[in-house]
């Protein structure tokens, strides 16, 4: 019995020792979180920076402050992968790597993620209640975002530019450019004969837009078969910078870009089956470096999943209000 007991004791000790050794050994595997240098942090007013630093910096910056247990494997592996993902989506320490338009778009994206209660993550705020973003904080962030996109639409410079472009265009209404987007989508103007599915006015950035859909897209909307959208559906969004007239109407000024979404579940499987492309100004310069569409889908995935990853479709109304004019 005694011998057997000591054997059991030895076994337990050996087991513990093995677990301990394994625990130590795994510390040499996988990466723990490292803080790369801060290349240029977001330059926001103090009241804005304060909120971002308090609620977002733990994951979305190169100034991650970790607890001791966050640095111990296997927890460190999870934390590391989360932070890597977070930095890729938005990194306030490498803000200088984007141009002002991209920075502005990121701020609006952040604001929408917060308002949709998708950020900060609930699992994070459960452990870090100080990171919760209040309605007051949202107001501060909202005012900041609005200040960034505060171009005065009634501005005469804007109006003069619009007049010049229009006078030039109306001569023959021809424009050039048939370039290819990095993901292989070539510019097309078939949308000119498609139905308009929506028109939107966007306060952030002061743009007015017409969104067209091909037959497959229009049918999918009518039948509400948008989860997923059928292969072959194509959407095209034509965007103008706003000019405001004296009666308070926002009207199309200078042409800004055409954006397309092409549905092909196989070809674009990395971006939820949608091929994104954007062609800038009247010479339709393709937007983005290879991989640019990751940024497109990350936003569409987070905020428009219910609509099959599409933002700009008309809103649902009661059927008795449908096509009332055609029934008369």
């Amino acid at each position, binding site marked *: 019995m005694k011998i057997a007991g000591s054997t059991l004791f030895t076994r337990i000790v050996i087991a513990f020792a093995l677990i301990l050794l394994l625990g130590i050994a795994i510390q040499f595997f996988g990466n723990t979180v490292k803080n790369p240098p801060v290349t240029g942090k977001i330059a926001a007013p103090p009241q804005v920076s304060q909120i971002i630093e308090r609620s977002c910096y733990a994951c979305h910056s190169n100034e991650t402050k970790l607890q001791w247990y966050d640095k111990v494997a296997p927890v460190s592996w999870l934390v590391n992968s989360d932070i890597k993902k977070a930095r890729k989506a938005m990194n306030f320490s490498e803000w200088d790597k984007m141009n002002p338009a991209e920075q502005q778009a990121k701020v609006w994206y952040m604001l*929408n993620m917060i308002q*949709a209660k998708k950020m900060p993550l609930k699992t994070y705020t459960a452990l870090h209640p100080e990171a919760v973003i209040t309605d007051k904080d949202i107001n501060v962030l909202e005012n900041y975002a609005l200040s960034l996109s505060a171009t005065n639409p009634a501005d005469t410079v804007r109006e003069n530019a619009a007049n010049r472009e229009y006078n030039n265009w109306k001569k023959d209404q021809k424009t050039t450019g048939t370039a290819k987007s990095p993901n292989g989508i070539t510019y097309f103007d078939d949308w000119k004969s498609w139905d308009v599915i*929506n028109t*939107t006015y966007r306060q952030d950035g002061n743009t007015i837009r017409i969104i067209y859909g091909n037959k497959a897209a229009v049918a999918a909307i009518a039948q509400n078969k948008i989860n997923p959208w059928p292969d072959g559906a194509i959407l095209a969004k034509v965007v*103008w910078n706003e000019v405001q007239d004296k009666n308070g109407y926002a009207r199309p000024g*200078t042409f800004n870009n*055409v954006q397309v979404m092409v549905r092909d579940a196989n070809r674009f499987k990395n971006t939820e089956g949608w091929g994104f492309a954007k062609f800038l100004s009247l010479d339709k310069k393709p937007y983005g470096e290879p991989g640019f569409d990751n940024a497109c889908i990350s936003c569409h995935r987070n905020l428009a999943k219910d609509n099959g990853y599409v933002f700009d479709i008309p809103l649902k109304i009661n059927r008795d209000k449908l096509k009332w*004019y055609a029934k008369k």
Partner: protein
Amino acid sequence: MLKNNWTSIKINIMKSKILFLLLGILIVSCNVNNEKTAREVYTANRLKAITTAYNKKAATMEILYGNDVALNNLIGRPDTKANGAIYKLITWKQHPDPNWHYVNGNEEVLSVETVTITNITNYNVEEQQPHAKTNTEVNDRISYITGLRPAVMP
């Protein structure tokens, strides 16, 4: 005892049948509810979108459609041989986009105004909330619709 057990099992089965039936009714009624709503897309039948405008005060969006004759008229290079300009101005009620704050999108059509110009000019309006228009109002609408500047199309 055994018999009692069987009875209680039977009752349980009956209960679950009722439950499933209720669940079934719930699912069906949900589906029916869903079908009560849909999304409106305006079919312009060969007319092309020429321009659009957002009325900030009223939160409405206008889209002007027209045929080639109308477009050429609006650009200020009327085709003297062609006759029969068709203009259609659709006014939509707008609503904030539930997925992206600060964007408004179309909800429902409020009015459809049609101007046709052959030898005579004709104005026709269909409104969700109809109201009679004076001659002056009609003339104002005609000059507004036939005076809009086309958007620069790529």
